[in-house]
């Protein structure tokens, strides 16, 4: 039976050998102990003896290199024929089994790649001070370090004017931040932010927790860090910037906590931003609605009648055409007067509020407005509004009259310049020609941005709406 002749392993560190020359000719007999070939490994030459007898059938050639254990020849028994194809026999032992050294109980923290390449001077802050500053919402830029090399240490934070204890509002998103070994000490999740935002914040000593994140995904971006810094620079440097008063701990154990995320969060952010950024105030004006009531009754005979809100939308749209200064928005360049009138209509939905838009409301007849608002309201409640339906409004109308409200102070829907609140349709008493007359009335509450127009034009605009409502037939 044929025996494989392998490249032998002649030393602990030998991994391969090169055939220098065969010492036995092809087909010749080999006895036990006969030197069969001469090999070279690690610059050392050595003869290799055979451990068995047989007829040599060479497979490897002079000059070829083989790994230890690979077949280089076959020793045939008497009568056997050489196999046609050389059988490759790599070393059987799998040594890779024990290669992975990550054993249980051994911790191998991986070093996270740290941002590098800052230009300019760095503020040196001890890890402890950094952690405490984040917890307390302290802007490290304001802290002068007294440690070696100007390092900010915890004691430097203690000596600042006392800041109100804040709780960083819980974030809905948790970001998989790679850190070396230690977990965030206070148990707060790290602020979700882009890498670029972190680098810029680190360079400027900005606390990411104080920066308003992008409302769409909740991440602090480089732009939001920049915006925050610009805001701070514009603000009085002596006074602390009027940052939002962060929510404090509940005064009792809450029955339930609703997170400020999703639609609720968006509304919260937009409404407070609106009030912060604009100079809003509200005027109220009563509108006589007898004509509208009668007009509505008449239309109702032919089919579904427009709602009172539809009348107001129509009236407001026409008023905007006549008073274009209110169909505007404040941009970095200034007050932009917009050509097209798109009136948004506030619709209450489950857990929130949506403001779908009636496009080109000033060109639509009342009937068309009614159809549109009906479709939008249904879609809003069903959650099937498209982006087009929500985009591009230049003015908003919001009604609380069905709840018994007469007047209120609606908040402008950014980036509009004004919003019209619609109160309750009510019976009221007035004096006409010395007689006490019962009329149908509702109160319009107009909130406008004083940066855009002053009180007089706003009042005139509102008056125009009241006038339009007095002549519903002209609403088409």
């Amino acid at each position, binding site marked *: 039976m044929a025996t494989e002749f*392998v490249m*032998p*392993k*002649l*030393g*602990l560190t*030998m991994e391969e050998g090169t055939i220098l020359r065969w010492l036995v000719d092809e087909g010749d007999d080999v006895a036990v102990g006969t030197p069969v070939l001469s090999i070279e*490994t690690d610059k*050392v030459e*050595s003869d*290799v*003896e055979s*451990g068995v007898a047989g007829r040599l059938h060479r497979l490897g050639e002079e000059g070829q290199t083989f*790994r*230890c*254990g690979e077949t280089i020849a076959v020793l045939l028994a008497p009568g056997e024929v050489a196999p046609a194809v050389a059988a490759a026999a790599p*070393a*059987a*032992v*799998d*040594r890779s*089994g*024990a290669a*992975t*050294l*990550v*054993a*249980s*109980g*051994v911790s191998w923290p991986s070093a996270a790649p740290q941002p590098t390449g800052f230009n300019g001077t760095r503020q040196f802050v001890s890890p402890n001070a950094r952690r405490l500053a984040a917890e307390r919402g302290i802007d490290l830029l304001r802290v002068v370090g007294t440690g070696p090399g100007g390092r900010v240490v915890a004691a430097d934070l203690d000596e600042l004017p006392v800041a109100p204890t804040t709780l960083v509002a819980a974030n809905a998103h948790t970001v998989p931040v790679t850190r070396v070994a230690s977990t965030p000490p206070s148990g707060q999740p790290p602020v979700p932010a882009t890498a670029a935002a972190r680098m810029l914040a680190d360079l400027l000593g900005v606390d990411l927790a104080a920066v308003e994140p992008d409302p769409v995904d909740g991440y602090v971006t480089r732009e939001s860090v920049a915006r925050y810094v610009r805001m701070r620079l514009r603000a009085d440097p002596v006074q602390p910037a009027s940052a939002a008063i962060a929510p404090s701990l509940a005064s009792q154990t809450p029955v339930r906590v609703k997170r400020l995320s999703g639609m609720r969060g968006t509304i919260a952010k937009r409404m407070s931003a609106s009030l912060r950024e604009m100079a809003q105030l509200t005027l109220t004006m009563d509108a006589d609605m007898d004509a509208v009531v009668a007009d509505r009754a008449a239309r109702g005979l032919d089919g579904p009648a427009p709602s009172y809100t539809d009348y107001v939308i129509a009236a407001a749209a026409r008023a905007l055409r006549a008073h274009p200064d209110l169909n505007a928005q404040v941009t970095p360049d200034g007050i932009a007067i917009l050509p097209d009138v798109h009136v948004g209509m506030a619709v209450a939905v489950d857990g929130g509020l949506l403001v779908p838009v009636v496009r080109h409301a000033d060109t639509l007849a009342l009937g068309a407005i009614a159809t549109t608002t009906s479709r939008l309201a249904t879609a809003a409640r069903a959650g099937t509004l498209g982006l087009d339906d929500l985009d591009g409004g230049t003015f908003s109308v919001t009604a609380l009259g069905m709840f018994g409200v007469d007047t209120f102070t609606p908040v402008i829907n950014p980036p509009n310049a004004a919003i019209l609140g619609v109160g309750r349709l009510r019976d009221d008493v007035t004096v006409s020609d010395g007689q006490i007359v019962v009329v149908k009335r509702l109160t319009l509450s107009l909130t406008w941005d004083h940066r855009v127009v002053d009180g007089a034009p706003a009042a005139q605009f509102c008056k125009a709406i009241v006038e339009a409502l007095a002549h519903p037939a002209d609403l088409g």
Partner: protein
Amino acid sequence: MELTRDVQMDLHRRMVRIRLFEEAAGRLAEAAKLPGFLHLYVGEEAVASGVCAALNDDDQITSTHRGHGHLVAKGGDFNRMMAELMGKSTGYCKGKGGSMHISDLELGMLGANGIVGAGSPIAVGAAFADKYRKRGQVAVAFFGDGATNIGAFHEAANMACALHLPIVFACENNEYGEFTARSKTMAITDIVDRAAGYGMPGVIVDGMDVLAVHEAAVEAVARARRGEGPSLIEAKTYRYYNHHGVQNLGLKYRPDAEVEQWKQRDPIFTFEERLIEAGTSTADEIEQVWAALRDDIAVAIQFAEDSPLPHVDQLLVDVYTQRTH
């Protein structure tokens, strides 16, 4: 010394077991199937066999880097030995020791040792425990000619004599310390000359003659058991193969003629001739011994190859003993 047939056949069997195991290990190593170092005992079988046959299971031995022979002679299990050489979890040391640290504490084999001479102090400790316990056990330290030059050996030999311990120092003088001839590393020719320096008797025996080795061992062990203290046996022997592995890689440091000369006095074949000549055994019986043991070797190789490698979660196990008291 008159030995029974059983004792003689036992001596023979021990030697054949060692020869077959070592030859198999050597072939596997050359086929790149055994990781790491391997130091083969081929040629020296008479020493381990002769000495271990004079011992009980609870007598202890310490060994050298060339330790397979000692473990086999003391009754080591082929399967577990082969598995250990292949680094498998079924090996004697669960794959964590390998050839150089192979051991069987139940057989009193306190391990092969990778440090030359380091076994002797440990054997002294075992002998100390034997004397302390007064149960009549003895310890044997195996070591080579090279080891007698290292400090640990001197300390052990001296301490054993100073404390009068039940120990036998068994020197396997194969005339080479690794790749250097013994004659270049010491000024004396016979290791036995050192024994008197420590205050113990010493004898030289022909390490290729298992009966001579056994006779000397029986005497030395009895002496120790009687409480008469240490003694040294210097067995002149020879290893056929390289310091490690089988064939030599690199410069030839031993003349072929020398190797051939020693092979003429092969401990197994010469003993077999004597057995047959004296009518103690027959060629057939001897061949059967070989055949049966060859089968055992094949079974062991298969067992080892089929055995699993240790899992990585065993890496940190057995660094320490957990307290149970």
